[in-house]
């Protein structure tokens, strides 16, 4: 293992997969807290050695069970984290799923990724309409991680029972399973991106080498782990740097998690950061916020800066296991390219990335779709950018017909517009982004507003709140279009 390690100028270590990360941390700092979580109003801790122990025990049980593809409903609990690590190290294909997604979306994603067993918190499994899910996927086996491994009473200081968890882990981890993340879209275009523990720890190295944390830091993991930004920048970043990771308690505690866990560092999507700032939810110990996964208007960064926070902005994609570039000082939109990435700008200004070990294997069982974006190891991001004289990347726009929202979700406009057209009929309209929300621009009489709203109500309920049409703008003249009939969105925005 020693020859695999390297150190940067900032003395950050690179880990080559989860087994390397967990066993090295346990060996070097066994009693240091790896995870912090809430239990009955108190902050409890799981040490590096106990984390390794729990992962190795569960990993062994999963291997024995012979499960091949495990879907995990990510609730951000310690059990969830342990199960994800264990599943991957057991060699199972591990699919991270949104615990709050609808049954229909879950069913679609489960089928698309060949999940044969679904694990999650027992309360969550009950809340989920299991009957509904089982009727959609008859072969799906429902289970709970707790039936495989009783969660230890860590508060009692229970010691590991395994003689040599590191050896046990290494014995079975010769081939780690792939780990699948669904991109943030909610339409049929939502794709399963195949990553590995090696690509994810490489990505954590990317972040930690530019923005290192120390054992004195405390990282609050408030974003969902089924999102690659949350997984890498909310969890692995802290673990790789030796900083304890406080596991947030979900959306119900967005407003009080920071004051409860007193983090020094936080990763957030722009909309969440704005909410925390506006409602005075941040703690005085917090010094750094890493913002990513969505467009971040200057007003949010300015507000954070006025609060005395060091705000860094990250640019990345699920396809590159998260981080491509990161701003650390000065202009928050001038991004330093991460050490394992090469970025160049195509003649049409599209950002092209070679991400080395961080690059995805591809989209799950979609080789043709993979080929459309990944060409000889170079990813066509669909984003437009420029590189300044200092070699820093600036994002200037989007080539794809897609909106990326401050909460990190994406909306594919052609599909969205097709769904709307199926409801309102053949009308001259388009959807554009305004104030970070989708807005419908339509050539129609404004008096039809109420009728159109009523028509679209049911359809909009199928979309997350942030993706529902926020407004309608009525034009008295036809929308600008190309010769082939495509809406000139940029021109439309200029007209408005």
């Amino acid at each position, binding site marked *: 293992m020693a020859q695999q390690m390297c150190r940067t100028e900032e003395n950050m270590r690179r880990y080559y997969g989860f087994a390397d990360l967990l066993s090295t941390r346990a060996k070097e700092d066994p009693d240091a807290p790896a995870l912090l979580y809430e239990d009955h109003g108190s902050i409890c801790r799981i040490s590096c050695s106990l984390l390794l122990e729990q992962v190795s025990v569960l990993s062994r049980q999963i291997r024995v069970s012979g499960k091949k593809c495990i879907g995990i409903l990510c609730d951000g609990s310690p059990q969830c984290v342990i199960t994800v690590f264990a599943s991957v190290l057991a060699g199972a294909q591990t699919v991270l799923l949104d*615990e*709050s*997604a*609808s*049954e229909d979306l879950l069913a679609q994603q489960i089928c698309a990724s060949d999940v044969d067993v679904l694990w999650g918190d027992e309360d969550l499994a009950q*809340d*989920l309409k299991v009957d509904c899910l089982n009727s959609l996927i008859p072969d799906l086996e429902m289970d709970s991680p707790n039936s495989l491994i009783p969660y230890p009473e860590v508060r009692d200081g229970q010691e590991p029972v395994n003689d040599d968890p590191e050896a046990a882990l290494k014995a079975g981890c010769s081939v780690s399973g792939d780990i699948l993340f669904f991109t943030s879209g909610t339409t049929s275009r939502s794709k399963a991106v195949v990553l590995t523990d090696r690509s994810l720890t490489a990505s954590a190295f990317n972040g930690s080498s530019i923005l290192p944390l120390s054992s004195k830091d405390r990282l609050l993991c408030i974003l969902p782990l089924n999102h690659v930004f949350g997984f890498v920048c909310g969890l692995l970043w802290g673990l790789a740097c030796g900083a304890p990771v406080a596991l947030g308690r*979900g*959306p*119900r505690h*967005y*407003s009080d998690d920071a004051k409860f866990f007193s983090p020094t560092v936080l990763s957030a999507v722009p*909309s*969440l950061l*704005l*909410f925390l700032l506006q*409602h005075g939810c941040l703690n005085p110990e917090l010094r750094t916020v890493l913002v990513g996964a969505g467009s971040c208007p200057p007003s949010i960064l300015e507000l954070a800066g006025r609060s005395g926070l060091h705000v860094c902005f990250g640019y990345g994609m699920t396809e590159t296991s998260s981080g491509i570039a990161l701003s650390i000082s000065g202009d928050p939109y001038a991004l330093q390219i991460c050490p394992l990435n090469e970025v160049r700008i195509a003649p049409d200004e599209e950002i092209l990335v070679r991400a080395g070990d961080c690059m995805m294997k591809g989209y799950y069982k979609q080789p043709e779709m993979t080929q459309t974006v990944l060409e000889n190891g170079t990813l066509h991001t669909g984003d437009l950018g420029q590189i300044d004289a200092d070699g820093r990347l600036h994002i200037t726009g989007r080539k794809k017909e897609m909106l990326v929202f401050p*909460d990190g979700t994406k909306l594919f406009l052609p599909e969205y517009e097709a769904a709307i057209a199926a409801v309102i009929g053949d009308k001259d309209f388009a959807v554009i982004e305004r104030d970070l929300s989708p807005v419908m621009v339509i050539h129609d009489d404004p008096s039809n507003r109420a009728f159109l*709203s009523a028509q679209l*109500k049911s359809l*909009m*309920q199928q*979309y*997350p*709140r*942030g993706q*529902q*049409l*926020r*407004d309608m703008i009525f034009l008295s003249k036809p929308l600008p279009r190309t010769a082939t009939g495509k809406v000139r969105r940029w021109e439309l925005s200029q007209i408005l």
Partner: protein
Amino acid sequence: MNREAIAKTCREVIYECVPELEGTPIYEDTVINTDTAIDSMGFTLVICRLEATFDVRIPNRQWAKLSTFGDVVTAIEKRVAKKER
């Protein structure tokens, strides 16, 4: 607790969470996110406060389906009735 009383409390919670809406009428068919401009994070706060106020729990995956103020009231009403039984 009847629907009218639940709706009254829901309005109070919304005005408390989103002070800029004070004075803006909220009707049963008011679409919460578009007509009132409550963003997704603000809506999360509203739901959490409502859950605490009424001591009920609306599963996360139901939140996205709550479009109008009436939908929110119905979701609370259903769970309050279940609790009272």
